[in-house]
């Protein structure tokens, strides 16, 4: 029974990490793509503003990429940290209930 519970915990953690990365990577990719496309048009209209547009673009991309990094960190915590904690909690709970 305990093995099944641990298996479910590990499976859910892996599934959660996968979903987290999958969904978390969509938004920044689409956002950065749109931003860069518009920046290209802006430079096409005003080539003399290339430096300012590039600078703003890099900062904007860094901001939009942060959500992807949040998802990445959560996924890594789900893979490396959460299973151990959850299994420990489960084992302690079973011991307490048994005693």
């Amino acid at each position, binding site marked *: 029974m305990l093995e099944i519970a641990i298996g479910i915990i590990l499976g859910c953690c892996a599934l959660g990490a996968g979903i987290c990365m999958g969904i978390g*990577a969509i938004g920044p990719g689409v956002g950065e793509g749109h931003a*860069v496309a518009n920046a290209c048009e802006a430079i096409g209209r005003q080539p003399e503003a290339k430096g300012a547009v*590039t600078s703003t673009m*890099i900062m904007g991309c*860094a901001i939009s990429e942060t959500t*992807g990094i949040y998802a990445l960190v959560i*996924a*890594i915590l789900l*893979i490396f940290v959460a299973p151990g904690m959850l299994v420990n909690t489960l084992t302690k709970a079973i011991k307490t209930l048994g005693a």
Partner: protein
Amino acid sequence: MFLTSYMRRLEGWIILFKKVDPTVKKETRFIAIVVLLLLVLMEAVFLVIGQWDMTVLLGGVYGAAVAVGNFFLMGLTVQKCLTLEPDEAKKRMKLSQQGRLLMLLVLCMIGAALPCFHTVAVLVPQFFPRIGVTIRGLTMKDKDS
């Protein structure tokens, strides 16, 4: 044959690095300085709470290097994309973002899996460029006003 193709690719990368836009260099330098300062702060916090050891230092340095490298690669992609047509630039940026995220995932997993790195110390520096960008935004606003 393989070696010639590899050498040609390597030459391409070297040429690309030589042609780095001054704006990209400037922004990366700023972000690197901010990341370094925040890394020192993070190490100090670990020291104060009594959790500091060599793994925290190594993990922090590794995480900071990954974060700055990711920012620099993003700058290079933006520099390249701004010379392309809008539709092509959009596709290239999406592809680059996904590639860099995959690279970050692999590097952070290596950092979390290896016992010589502290997991939290590897992950926390990934947020430092965001803080740097916020600071940059504030300083740019002050200059504008």
